[in-house]
């Protein structure tokens, strides 16, 4: 019978494909393993160690009435936007500690916030499953009246980031997808499917020809995507638990990740594998957020044990430990000109270190 014959064919094809998939997976693993020809700290042995490193707390930003969940620097290198569990988004002048804008969101747990590259708007979202853009204005007393809901996901918004202009925004969600949106029309430009769990963090490539971005999630993998085609170009495994934060290395050739497995790792795009792992037996709490100093020599990690660990990216050792906050460090970021580090915490405050 015709239907019987077709069924048998399909069965064979599935098995052949399955076998091919297994072969390819094995081959990929072997190829990636072959490339690890040297340990990073050995290769970096001729580099001078970092001495006389000191960073002091310079500003203490108090004002949130709930856990600080996310922060982002403005391109003007002095303003910071932060969002909190109390449903508020605040814009600070880091030099003077003044709060310049305050927006109350209709929901609590605003897990994501981002500053527009022009400095004239901010975006945020969280449990409302949306990403909303607010224009910043000193004339408007109620910024919320001009807000614009741009992105909608089917689960919480975990992260968002403007691309090169205020008019395009990239979002990551608990629904395991990422998406690129046009702000003006609110239209979805591209969606990115591939993660097997919540997407926790995204970061855009800093390179000029940048069409790439990296995402990290609860499926313990980091994926690199081409924004133009919606395709996943590389998958990086290695972490033993959720990846909470991903951040590109300033050259765009690599990226760092912070994970619940208490390690930070450096993955190199061209080697298509992990290049280094930053860990210590004494560090047993998850890392929530990572960022590089402007030269890429230092990697800052904010951990659940209330500290910020500063790692030497090349030599792999910990340069120092900042007893930064009185509760988890949930987010951190280096200012665009590399002059300061801002850390945000579940102790409701942010601190600026320089």
């Amino acid at each position, binding site marked *: 019978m015709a*239907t019987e014959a*077709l*069924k048998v064919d*399909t*069965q064979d*094809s*599935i098995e052949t*494909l*399955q076998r*091919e*998939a297994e072969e*390819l*997976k094995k*081959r*990929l693993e072997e*190829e*990636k393993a072959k*490339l*690890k*020809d*040297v340990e*990073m700290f050995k*290769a*970096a042995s001729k*580099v001078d160690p970092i001495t006389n*490193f*000191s*960073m002091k707390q*310079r*500003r203490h930003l108090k004002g949130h009435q709930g856990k600080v969940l996310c922060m982002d620097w403005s391109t003007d290198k002095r303003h910071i936007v932060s969002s909190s569990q109390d449903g508020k988004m605040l814009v600070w002048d*880091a*030099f003077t500690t003044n709060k310049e804008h305050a927006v109350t969101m209709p929901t609590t747990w605003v897990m994501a916030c981002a500053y527009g590259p022009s400095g004239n708007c901010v975006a945020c979202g969280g449990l409302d499953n949306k990403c909303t853009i607010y224009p910043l204005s000193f004339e408007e007393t109620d910024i919320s009246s001009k807000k614009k809901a741009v992105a909608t996901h089917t689960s919480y918004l975990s992260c968002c980031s403007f691309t090169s202009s205020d008019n395009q925004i990239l979002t990551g969600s608990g629904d395991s997808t990422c998406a690129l949106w046009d702000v003006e029309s609110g239209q979805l430009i591209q969606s990115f499917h591939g993660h097997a769990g919540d997407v926790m963090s995204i970061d855009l490539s800093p390179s000029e020809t940048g069409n790439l971005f990296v995402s990290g999630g609860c499926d313990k993998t980091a994926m690199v995507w081409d924004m133009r085609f919606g*395709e996943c*170009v*590389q*998958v990086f495994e290695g972490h033993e638990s959720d990846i909470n934060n991903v951040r590109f*290395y*300033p*050259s765009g*050739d*690599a990226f760092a990740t912070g994970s619940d497995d208490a390690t930070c790792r450096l993955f*190199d795009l*061209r*080697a*298509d*594998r992990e*290049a280094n792992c930053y860990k210590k037996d004494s560090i047993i709490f998850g890392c929530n957020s990572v960022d590089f*100093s*402007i*030269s*890429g020599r*230092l990697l800052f990690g904010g951990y659940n044990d209330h500290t910020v660990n500063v790692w030497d*990216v*090349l030599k792999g050792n910990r340069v120092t430990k900042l007893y930064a906050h009185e509760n988890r460090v949930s987010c951190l970021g280096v200012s665009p000109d*590399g*002059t*300061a*580090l801002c850390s945000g915490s579940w102790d409701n405050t942010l601190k*600026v270190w*320089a």
Partner: protein
Amino acid sequence: MNEMEAAKEARMNKFQEGLQQQRKLVEQLRLEAAVPRVRVSECIEDIMKYCEQHTSEDVLINGFLRPGDNPYKEKGGCTIL
């Protein structure tokens, strides 16, 4: 359609779905396998070069030339006697 034929059709659809998924997976793996890779030692060299080239700008490592250049340094002074 009688029950038998309906069941056969359902089985066929499931097979087709499974086939689609497997095809997609194999395509993705083929894409990934085709990515050109570079040895880790070479990648590390490039990272080290980048660090070296940009270390002079990195004030978090080098500090400022004059303490007054740090925009976060407290201006003015109080001497504790």
